[in-house]
């Protein structure tokens, strides 16, 4: 098996997100590496995913978990070498798995040679590669993103005795994208990895590339112009490769990043994610329907990326104040669980280890329009450690078995880059791949099954969505359609059994076939279609006319 050339492959992708550091340590230094990751490709292939999104693995002082890059075209020695990365890439492609890597385009580490040169002198040729000012008065309307740690978007550089602009940590100076040399340099970086064979890039922090006085410094027209040019070059020289935008904005603002199909291929749908959690807690479909109704149409060649959790905090930037307070009160009662404007917990603990709710949310993830992303470890229900700093509590070692270091590494436990989760509920003795492989009805087994079912039809990846609005607001029901085929999805968001009557007149005469078991349900007739659902249960029905 190998990756097939297919221009819209990203629409059919099921993405697995991981950091190489967390996955498998092959040389027993306590840190995951590419050789170890290569060893686990069979596991990922068996799981059923077809794309891996790698978090940053570049040389870096690691003050922001690798998003502070000191060298764009190498591999951090902790994780291996370029050759080992190439070997991993080849092995992944042989298994039909595509690889997306990060492109942190907005900023570098202050340890990057570019910045070291830029700060050395105001006359240095690379001076203008960053955004400098003699005062910290400019761009006053721009918000601070890392509220817990930063007081300003300007930092004083004692070396060059001036201020430099940073939208994130102060050790991550923003690149000056108004400078064509920066554009050329970053395109060169992209070419480096594309020539090696990577399949796409997730562009980090993309709304912030350009700043202008009197604006909020986000989503500016000049930023879009840059991105269109990058895309033009990509399509011309590397057809079939993909760009994924990280733009934590309202759907209407993210829409611009698709352009007319000439900017990004994909973008994350950030506002949907907290509302999925909200809907399950409220036992009310309203938050989901409301945000999806506001989501604009995107070009046919484009796709939303949807997810439940990731390496960052569960962001609550794109919710109302009432919604944020609700989410904090319901999901992050302990203030230790909160960071910036978000919640730093994993899926399973947020669902209180309730298998039914984990399945329900995963079912919605797999059935809503968009390319789904599974965060590593969520397929087995891994827990978190909110007492680790920053967002490291959701970046702990993968739990492979109940043995030494959870099978992640042969190193002394004290040497691990992070302690393994070890409490009786989520610890590696209780939650690990090996145990769940041996259990027919484990969460891992179920995840494989749902991925397989989703993959069995293009309806989920390519289809439209039409919401049904039964009078029972605790039921979220919708029909996915593609090429005259339909799938009916019915989700009980409630902790109690529910009855729901669906208006399926448009599908009268069709037979609903439940997709996990293949069983026939009564043909749709004239009357409302009555279904009863157990707590948190969901159904996927293929509607068959026969």
């Amino acid at each position, binding site marked *: 098996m190998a990756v097939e050339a297919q221009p819209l492959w990203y629409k059919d992708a099921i993405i697995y997100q991981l950091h190489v550091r967390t996955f498998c340590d092959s040389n027993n230094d306590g840190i995951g590496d590419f050789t170890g990751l290569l060893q686990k490709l069979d596991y990922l292939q068996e799981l059923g995913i077809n794309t891996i999104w790698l978090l940053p693995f570049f040389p870096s002082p690691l003050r922001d978990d690798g998003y502070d890059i000191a060298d764009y075209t190498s591999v951090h020695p902790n994780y291996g070498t370029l050759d080992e990365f190439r070997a991993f890439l080849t092995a992944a492609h042989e298994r039909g798995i595509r690889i997306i890597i990060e492109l942190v385009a907005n900023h570098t580490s202050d340890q990057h040679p570019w910045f070291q040169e830029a700060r050395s002198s105001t006359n240095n040729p690379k001076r203008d590669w960053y955004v400098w000012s003699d005062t910290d008065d400019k761009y006053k309307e721009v918000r601070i993103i890392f509220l817990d740690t930063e007081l300003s978007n300007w930092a004083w550089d004692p070396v060059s005795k001036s201020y430099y602009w940073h939208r994130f940590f102060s050790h991550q100076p923003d690149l000056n994208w108004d400078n064509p040399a920066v554009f050329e340099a970053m395109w060169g970086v992209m070419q480096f990895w594309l020539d090696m064979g990577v399949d796409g890039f997730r562009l980090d922090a993309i709304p912030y590339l350009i700043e202008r006085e009197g604006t909020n410094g986000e989503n500016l027209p000049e930023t879009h112009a840059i991105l269109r040019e990058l895309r033009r070059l990509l399509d011309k020289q590397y057809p079939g490769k993909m760009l994924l935008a990280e733009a934590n904005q*309202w759907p209407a603002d993210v829409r611009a990043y698709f352009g007319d199909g000439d900017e990004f291929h994909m973008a994350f749908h950030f506002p949907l994610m907290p509302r999925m959690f909200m809907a399950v807690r*409220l036992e009310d479909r*309203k938050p989901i329907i409301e945000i999806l109704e*506001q989501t604009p149409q995107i070009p046919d060649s484009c796709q939303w990326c949807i997810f439940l959790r990731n390496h960052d905090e569960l962001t609550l930037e794109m919710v*109302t104040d009432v919604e944020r307070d609700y989410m904090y009160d319901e999901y992050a009662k302990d203030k230790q669980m909160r960071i910036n404007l978000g919640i730093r917990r994993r899926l399973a603990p947020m669902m209180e280890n309730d298998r039914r709710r984990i399945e329900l949310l995963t079912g919605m993830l797999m059935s809503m329009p968009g390319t789904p992303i599974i965060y590593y470890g969520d397929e087995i229900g891994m827990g978190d450690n909110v007492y680790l700093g920053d967002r490291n509590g959701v970046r702990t070692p993968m739990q492979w078995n109940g043995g030494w270091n959870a099978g992640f590494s042969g190193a002394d436990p004290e040497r691990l880059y992070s302690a393994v989760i070890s409490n009786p509920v989520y610890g590696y003795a209780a939650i690990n791949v090996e145990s769940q492989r041996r259990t027919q009805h484990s969460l891992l087994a179920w995840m494989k099954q749902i991925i397989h079912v989703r993959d069995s039809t293009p309806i989920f990846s390519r289809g439209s969505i039409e919401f049904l609005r039964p009078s029972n607001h605790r039921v979220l029901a919708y029909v996915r359609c593609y090429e005259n085929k339909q799938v009916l999805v019915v989700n009980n968001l409630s902790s109690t059994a529910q009855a729901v009557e669906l208006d399926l007149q448009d599908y009268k005469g069709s037979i609903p076939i439940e997709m996990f078991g293949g069983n026939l349900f009564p043909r749709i007739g004239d009357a409302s279609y009555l279904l009863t659902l157990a707590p948190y249960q969901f159904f996927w029905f293929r509607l068959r006319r026969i």
Partner: protein
Amino acid sequence: MVEEILLADDFVRQLMSVGEVDVLVGIPSFNNALTIANTVQAVEQSFQLGFARQRVVLVAVDGGSGDGTRDVVMNARTEKSSSGRGLTSLRTEQRVVTQYANAPSAGLALRTILAAADLLRAKACAVVSPATPNVTTAWITNLLEPVYRDKFDFVAPLYNRHKYDGLLSRNLLYPMSRSVFGQGIRELHPSELGFSGRLASHCLGQDVWNQGDIQDAPEIWMALTAISSDFKCCQAFLGTKERGTAGTAPDIVTAVRQNVGSLFWCLDADENFWMQRATPEAVPSFGPQSELTTEPMNLNRQRIYELFRSGVQDLGPILETILASDTMAEIRSVTAQSEEKCRFSGELWARTLFDFAASHHHAVLNRDHLIQALVPLYRGRIHSFLVEHQDSTAQQMEADTENLCVQFEKQKPYLVERWKAKA
């Protein structure tokens, strides 16, 4: 055989879809198309502002309106609080509309709302009248919060009124219920009230819903049941009570019949309770004290006086059957006085009402006729009230109301004695 009252199928179906709620607000309606949209909006805005996280429902129960009231309710649009992104409340806003009967009935309307509260296991409930033109978001919140947050079971409203408004409450319902039942609820027959799901279930379970006496003023029964069944009661200030459309208030005969009929029925039903009740208790109040406004108002005092005198004369033999002889004698001497000097004292009024209550209990004559016979005497009392308070300040009137209540409380043993005596 008592006729069974069942909820309409469609109503039950709608309730099924709503499921369990935390807060329920009921609106009983009949031909209120002109005003009900405002009420609906006030309710839903109170949900958004005060109960954003709670499961809420608005239940509109209609008595067969012919002016499109139900459609107005379904189509009323509430202005959403702005998030700038079209995002509104956390939860689905639930609105249930049903027609409970082909003709309006206050008792049946209230029962339908109580049934909804019981089936949906609502924690806090309120009833709001669509005929009150100035109902606001704050009114509804003030009725619900003492129940939802402070765990009271019954919330009666307090209003700012004109000094000549609410005379039936001030002169009859309030002093009588306070002295007899031991808790002073100023508005015993309110058009807005709050109650707990617990009280709703309790009231719903009582075998009273076929009783004609309480059908027109079931709120009086509910309030007195709350007191006699040891539920926690309080009062909450709402605002100025504006009058509804001219001509919609019942005439004095109907008003007396409905309210006093319900009150006397409750005296019969709860005699074991109030006979034992000695010292009155204060009822907690929330919000600012209610105020009286004292702007000039034209009332035909002369006419009221003449109806009082002629009524006493015409109904003399009937009144002699109802009243104790000395009460009757004293009333006759009052009617002999001139209009300026005519005074129906508080002490006499208390004895009069207690005589009526006892005679009602003993059914000395047809009970409906008995209550109607109270009307001219009520006019006499009102006439005295108007004379005494034509120049009174709000403070003086409140002091007088308190004195009246004290008079009633002093006379309670008299009521007990007459109640127990053979007819």
